[in-house]
């Protein structure tokens, strides 16, 4: 066997992003496993990871994790390049854009819960826009909008609370210098 001569040197950060993306993909699997009454509504637990990564490592890392989550998740579910994949991708891009803009909000007043809700609304807005202009140009689609908005609010709040709780714990752990081994 001829060994590949192409060597890709993965940095520590690459490994970190890959780990976080893997975690996010695992959570999207959990999403898919939870049955919900209205099709198209998902809790979006993977966004918890994106929110935490955003708060701790910044926008660049969050973008990587989010995009890798969509790509990796679609390969796992077999939906790569299917309409569902593009909806996911569009939602993720809109969420990231909204998170980027929400970065301008003062941290003192607005926490992970705000960012989570804003991202959730941006996600459904992006998905619905793409669905309407590309897949189903039917006004009937708008009858679903209020339900999606309500779901975005509820799941956005829940995911934001989980992220906030996690971030709080991490901060507390950093304040008290107790050695905790992550790896």
């Amino acid at each position: 066997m001829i060994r590949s001569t192409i060597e890709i040197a993965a940095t520590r950060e690459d490994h970190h992003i890959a780990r976080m993306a893997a975690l996010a993909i695992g959570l999207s699997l959990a999403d898919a496993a939870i049955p919900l009454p209205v099709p198209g509504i998902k809790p979006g637990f993977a966004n918890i990871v994106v929110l935490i990564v955003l708060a701790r490592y910044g926008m660049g890392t969050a973008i990587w994790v989010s995009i890798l989550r969509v790509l990796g998740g679609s390969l796992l579910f077999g939906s790569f390049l299917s309409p569902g994949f593009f909806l996911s991708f569009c939602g993720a891009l809109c969420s990231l854009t909204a998170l980027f803009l929400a970065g301008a909000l003062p941290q003192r007043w607005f926490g992970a819960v705000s960012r989570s809700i804003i991202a959730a609304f941006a996600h459904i807005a992006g998905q619905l826009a793409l669905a309407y202009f590309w897949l189903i140009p039917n006004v009937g689609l708008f009858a679903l909008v209020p339900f999606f908005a309500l779901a975005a609010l509820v799941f956005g709040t829940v995911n934001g609370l989980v992220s906030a709780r996690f971030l709080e714990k991490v901060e507390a752990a950093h304040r008290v210098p107790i050695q905790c081994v992550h790896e």
Partner: protein
Amino acid sequence: MRLIKPGDWLVMVLGLALAGFLFSQIRHGGEAQQALIRKGGEVFAEVSLFQERRISVPGPLGVSMIAISGGAARIVQDPGPRQYCVRQGWLRHEGDVAVCLPNQVSVELVGRKKRYDSLNY
């Protein structure tokens, strides 16, 4: 650090307001103006929903009777065996359709302008 900061409450309230607004808008989109009656794929009649009247549409099995009253339309009588279109009752909103397939008669409510749906797109 509290989990929910003051601004978070603001965002939640705004989100709830947005969802509430969307719920209030849900059926205010298109008002039905006319009933489009088709027979065998061709337009048989296009009548206003605001004039009370009954229309008989002859099809291959017999006569389907359509009633129009108070901005709504329904199929009152149909010779078809399963009576799906009759049981559908009053059609009130733009885009509502009742189809009597055996007798090749259909009623569709339309607004001022015809919008796209996933069938004719």
